[in-house]
């Protein structure tokens, strides 16, 4: 993350990630107000859709089997998740979190048995969900989470709030997923550093961002190695097993962070075909293997 000297910055932690808001202004009060605005929106979304604290998501999961009424915002996210499921032919699935109970990428090198994976798969699959907006009914034992959507969505929502408040150029970065309001005051693009996956903390490249958003998918530090075979962290919700030859990380540029994040995820889920997918879809992207 590059930062011009004159930017006012607000740092905070949300969604278990370091976040930063940059305001291209010398008005420190405005900088603070914009920072607070972004922070409170990020925390609002984190609280509302948390998997760990009482939230819309825990309410839905605790009542798996029952029909649950959801509010407008959650319904919009569910509609979006349903569309992503369809566009990815079932590879992007907000019910796939159950698989994480059997796949522990904790470096211990223990592979789950086929039987355990099969067992978990019984509770995975958007096709088992009855979604008739605004009513959601999971099959008993199922769970959802918005982990694959929430952070990028928060970037876009927070940025929209900022734009309502002030025309000042702003960059919102929530854990590496970021979006800018446009060019900086002096007409220059924002300069963003892409982290080097092999040497953490050091820069692997500089990206100039004049508009839109970039989002990164892939957790470069999480994998499982057994008998010399490296099992990636990206799980196929249809088979229950890791996707073969998934890139370690994909960074995508798009108009909105939500779109960028989803394109990155859909590409990652293509495994060996990630680059081909991104090229075919004419996406400006950076793939790290």
């Amino acid at each position, binding site marked *: 993350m590059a930062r011009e000297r004159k930017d006012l910055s607000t740092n905070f932690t949300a969604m278990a990630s370091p976040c930063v808001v940059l305001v291209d202004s010398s008005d420190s009060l405005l900088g603070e107000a914009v920072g607070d605005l972004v922070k409170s929106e990020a925390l609002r979304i984190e609280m509302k859709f948390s998997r760990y604290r009482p939230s819309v998501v825990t309410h839905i999961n605790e009542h798996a089997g029952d029909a649950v009424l959801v509010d407008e915002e959650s319904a919009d996210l569910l509609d979006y998740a349903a569309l992503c499921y369809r566009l990815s032919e079932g590879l992007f699935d907000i019910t796939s979190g159950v698989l994480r109970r059997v796949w522990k990428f904790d470096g211990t090198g223990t592979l789950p048995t086929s039987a355990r994976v099969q067992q978990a798969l019984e509770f995975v699959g958007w096709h088992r969900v009855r979604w008739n907006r605004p009513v959601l009914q999971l099959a008993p034992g199922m769970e959802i989470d918005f982990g694959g959507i929430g952070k990028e969505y928060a970037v876009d929502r927070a940025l929209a709030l900022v734009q309502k408040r002030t025309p000042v150029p702003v960059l919102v970065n929530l854990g590496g997923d970021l979006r800018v309001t446009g060019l900086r005051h002096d007409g220059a693009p924002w300069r963003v550093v892409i982290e080097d996956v092999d040497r953490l903390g050091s820069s692997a490249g500089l990206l100039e961002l004049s508009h839109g958003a970039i989002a990164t998918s892939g957790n470069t530090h999480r994998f499982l190695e057994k008998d010399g075979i490296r099992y990636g962290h990206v799980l196929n919700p249809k088979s229950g097993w890791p996707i073969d030859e998934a890139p370690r990380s994909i960074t995508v540029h798009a108009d909105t962070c939500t779109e960028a994040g989803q394109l990155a995820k*859909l590409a990652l889920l293509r495994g060996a075909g990630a680059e081909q997918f991104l090229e075919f879809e004419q996406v400006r992207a950076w793939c790290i293997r």
Partner: protein
Amino acid sequence: MRVQLKATHSAANPGLRRALKIAAAGLLASGTGKAQEVPPDAPSTGVDSGVLYYHENGRVQAIEPELNLSQMFGEDSKLSIGAVGDALTGATPLGAVPSTLPQTYIRPYKVVPLGTPVTVTTASGGSTVVLVPPAAGATTQTLAASTIVPANTYPLDHAFHDDRFAGHIGWEQALTSTLKLNGGLAYSKEHDYRSESANIGLSKDFFAHNTTLDAGLNYESDLSFPIGGTPTPLTVINGDWKGPDASRHEVDAVAGITQVMNRRWLATLSYSYADAHGYQNDPYKIISVVDPISGQPNSQLYESRPESRRKQSVFLDNKIHLSSDVISVSLRGYKDDWGIKSVTADLRYRFQIGQDYYIEPHVRYYDQRAADFFRYYLVAGEAMPQYASADTRLAKFHAATYGMKFGMPLNEGSEFNVRIEYYDQHGNGSPAYAIGQLRQQNLFPDLQAVTVLLGYTYAF
């Protein structure tokens, strides 16, 4: 290995990307004028009973037993009491427009203590019980019912179910040989509605009983306590528990003249005026807000009707006795300040068959102009009107009724009769101004209903 992909920008986005872009952008952008029944000629002393069966095509059906008793006390007084029960089941229009996509409707269902296991997964009428997320610190759990209306289907509420009980008691007293006073009380109760009324009337005969003048006053007080509470008009429908009970009051005044025109012809002309105040919405009726281009419903609001209504009607009835047959012809004109105007024409011809049996064909025609605030739907982005209802009972429509009644005496003083009627209602299901997908929908399906009434009267 690090690969930077070519950032080629073409004018047309490929399908997936385009779909994703649109979806992401969408995600982030979100933010009666019913014809009145002519009262039957009740015997002066006796029993008048019946069972009515009513069936609408694919909608409501009702069974309604009725019993009326009347008894003279001396020459001058008459007591009448009556009771009627209704059991209605079936489906009733929600008011929403159909869509090329399935639609889900939510209404409040019940409130239970938090933590109550909810074992019911389906409520009546194929709807599903839905948990409404409780607010922080709440001690109760609100349950809602959701109904899914398939694509291209006229939205009906299949959970419609109602039982009604109504009773009335009346007293008629002759004060002099030409002056009669009458009064009565009536009560009606449904599971979500209660109505109480009181009436008083005078009738005075002139010119050797050839002319009768009538005047009457009726006061009615209603209380509406809909399931889930009383919704705020023009707010988005949801499963939350709503406002408190709502009341309505109506005063009716009627004045009439009945004239013996000649020995075969009796004519009645009457005028009535009614003034109603209070809650006049149907708490279950909703109205769609549609997209101005696609015509797809974006949201559903509770309807909104004015809190006052002034109604006037003029009624002319003629009974003509031929040698043995009887012709009844009546006309009614109605208007109110909601903008509804209606005309009803009714013709019955009673053929006497031999000494005892009769058969009575019946034709009625009804034509109504819409209320000013009737809308098939509202359009998103347009100014929100103060009043709006999509209840087709307030729309422009016409209807015809074809019926036949057959009566036979059982023994001295008693009669069994059966009446069958067919009701055929037509409205405009394809208004010319319909938008987008609404052009291919039927916004006002025709309605057909059959009524069968088995009656028994016994005069002492």
